[in-house]
C-alpha cells in the first residue's frame, strides 16, 4: 500500500500505474459525491471525469496540509457546482405542505441509501447543492454563500425548501400504513 505522499510523487512523475491506483482509491467515494450533487448518472460521470482530470492536473498544488481525500473531495464539490446550471437558484416557491409533519427516525431508518439518493437527485439543482453542502459536507450558510455567490439568507431558504421537498418525497414513498400510524 502506497502512502499518499509516495502516490502523489509518482503521479507527478507521470507514472500511469500510480495514477490508476489513485483513481481506484478514490473513484467510488467521489462517484458517490457526484451522484449526490447531480441529478442524473450521466452528469455524475461527467463530473467524475472532469474532477479527476483536475485532480491530476493540480496534484502539485497539494501541500499535505490536510487529508488527500478532503482535498480531492473539495475539487469534486467545486466541479459539481460548476457543472450545474447557473440559474439554479431561480425556482418557484413550494406552495403547499411546507410545514407538514415529518416522519420519525425509526421510519426513516428503513429507507435505503439508494432511495435517499434518488430523493436528493430529484431535487432542483439549487436545493440539492445547498442541502448537500449544509447537511452532508457540514458547510455553514456563510461558507455556502461564499462558495455559490449567493446570500446567506438565500442559502437558508434553499435549505429549508430542500428539506420540505425531501420530506414530501419520503412521505410519498413510505408505506401509507406506516405513515398513517405515525402521523
Amino acid at each position, binding site marked *: 500500500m502506497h502512502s499518499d505522499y509516495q502516490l502523489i510523487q509518482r503521479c507527478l512523475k507521470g507514472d500511469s500505474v500510480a*495514477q490508476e491506483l489513485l483513481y481506484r482509491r478514490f473513484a467510488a*467515494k467521489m462517484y458517490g459525491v457526484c*451522484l449526490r450533487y447531480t441529478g442524473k448518472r450521466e452528469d455524475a460521470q461527467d463530473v467524475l471525469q472532469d474532477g479527476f482530470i483536475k485532480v*491530476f492536473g493540480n496534484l502539485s498544488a497539494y501541500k499535505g496540509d490536510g487529508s488527500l481525500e478532503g482535498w480531492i473531495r473539495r475539487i469534486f464539490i467545486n466541479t459539481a457546482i460548476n457543472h450545474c446550471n447557473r*440559474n439554479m437558484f431561480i425556482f418557484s416557491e413550494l406552495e403547499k405542505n411546507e410545514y407538514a409533519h*415529518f416522519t420519525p427516525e425509526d421510519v426513516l431508518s428503513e429507507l435505503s*441509501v439508494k432511495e435517499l439518493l434518488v430523493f436528493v437527485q430529484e431535487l432542483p439543482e439549487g436545493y440539492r447543492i445547498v442541502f448537500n453542502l449544509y447537511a452532508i459536507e*457540514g458547510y455553514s450558510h456563510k461558507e455556502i454563500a461564499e462558495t455559490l455567490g449567493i446570500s446567506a439568507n438565500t442559502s437558508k431558504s434553499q435549505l429549508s425548501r430542500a428539506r420540505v421537498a425531501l420530506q414530501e418525497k419520503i412521505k410519498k414513498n413510505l408505506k401509507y400504513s406506516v405513515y398513517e400510524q405515525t402521523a
Partner: protein
Amino acid sequence: MNKRLEEIDNLYRKKFGDFAEDPPEFLWDKVRTNIPPAAVKPGLINLIRNNPFVSGIAGTITVAITAVTVYLSAYEPAEAPGIAAVEENKSLLADDISAIRQISLLENDRNTVNSPDVVSNSFQEKKANIPTANTLQPASQFTSPAVNALLPVSSQPILTENTTIEPTDNRVEITDNGNIFNRINNGEDIILEKPSPIAPENLVVSEENTPVTQNPVVIQEETTLISPETIEKEIVPALILTPLPTIRLASNEQALPEIQNPGLQEQLQNAPPVTDYRRNHTWSVGLCSSAEILSSDFQFAKARENLILGYGLTGKYEKNGIFIESGASFFRQSGFIDHNVKYSSLDSVGFYYNVDSLTFDAYWDSAHQTFVVEVVFHASPHTVFDSVTQSQVVRSPSSYSYLEIPLTFGYQKEGRRLNWIFQGGVVMSALIRSGEPELQLSHSENISSLSTARISQQRSAFGLNYFIAAGLEYKIGNHLGLMLQPYMKYYRKPLYFDDGSNKLYTTGLKAGLRYIF
C-alpha cells in the same frame, strides 16, 4: 418544527457519510486519456523547492563545496628550494639538463658574494665575462675570485648571448632568448622563475651592479628540455652570481649586509616605496543583469510571476581579497491580480405567450353534419428576465518595478584568469512603480449591481532579503572582468503583505561586466 426538519439532515449525514459507488469501468479510460502531461520535477529538486530549510542547507553545502574545491585547486605545497637545488646540482656534470637550470647559492655564501670586487664591476662587464652556453667555462673565468669561490664546481653559471638582465622599477627581469624571468621571494629563498608573472612582494631592487643576496638563490626553469643539443637554443642558463641588482628583503632588514657603494645608497634612499604590482586593494564598478526564479510556495506565483528580471550598477572596494559592494539595481516582476467579482445581471429565465386577441371561427362541418365554433388564440412570446447573482474570479495582468540597494560583503580568491567570489549580505528593496490596471469586465451588459474583492495579496512598499552568492569573474583584460554569479535570496520581509506563513525565496543568476580601476 425546525428540529424535526433537521432530522432529515442527520439521516442523510448518517447514510451518506461514507457513501460510495463504483463508477463504470470505462470512465477510467476517459480520465486516463485526458490527464494533462505531468510537469515532472526530480524528487530532490522538488524537495529543495518546497522546503526553505532544505534549500538553505543545499545552498550552504554548495557554497562550502565550491570554496573547498577552489582552495584545494589553488593550493601548491611549498618546496624547500635550497635542498632541492643541492640535489639537482649533484647531477649537473652528468649533463643533467634540469640541473643546469637550477643553481643555488647557499646561505653561507652570502657574505662572499657581497665583495667589493663584485660590486665595483658594471653589469655589462660582468655579463661579458660570463661564459655562454656554447662553452661551459670554469668558475675561474669570473672576474671576482670571491664569486668563483662561491660557486660549487657543478654550478657553472651559463648565459647565452641573448641573455640580458634588466632591473625595472620594482623587480628584476632577466631576459633570455625572449624568455622573461621574474624573481620572487619564497620566504627563505629568492627564486628566479620562468615564466611566472609573480613578482616579489617585498624585494627592493635598486642597482644592477650589486649581487647581494640574503638567502640562497634558486633559478628554476620549468621548460623541459629534451636533449643537450637543444640547450643552446632553448635553455635559459642559470644566473646567480652575475651582477644581479641589489636584492633586499624588506621583511628581514636586520640581516642585510651593509651597502658600501655610495651611489647605490643614494639610489636606495631615493627609490620609490615598495609596492605590490598586484595591488592589494582595488576599486571597481560592475554593470550586471540578473534573472531570478521564485522558488517558494507563493500562492499566485505562476509562470508569468516566477521570473524576475533586473539590471544593476554596483561599486566594489576590495582589499586583500575581502570586499564590500553596494549600488543600485532595478528589477521588474510581472504577474496577475485576482478579484472576486459578484454581480447581478438581468438574464433570461424563460418566456411566456401573451394572448393578443381571441377569435371565434364558425363553420358547418358537413362530415358530421354539425356547426362548429373554434376558438383561436392569437399570442406572441415574451421573454422573462430576472436578476441573477453570480460570482466570478477575474484575473488581470499587473507589473511592478522595484529599486534594490544591496549591501554585501565577500571574499575574492584571485587566480591568473579567474577570480572566485563568495558573497553575502542584505538587500533592501522599494516598490517604485505599481502597474495595476483598472479591472476590466467582459460581461458588463445588464449588470445591475457589482462588488469586487481583491484576492491577490497587496504589494508592500519595502522589502528586505538576505543574499548569498558564489560565482566567478573571468579577467578579459587588465581592467575588465566578466562576472557570472549564481545566487539565492531569502526574503525576510517579502514583496507582498503576508501572514508570515509563506516566505518568499528566489534563486537567480547574475551576469555582467566589471571595470577595475
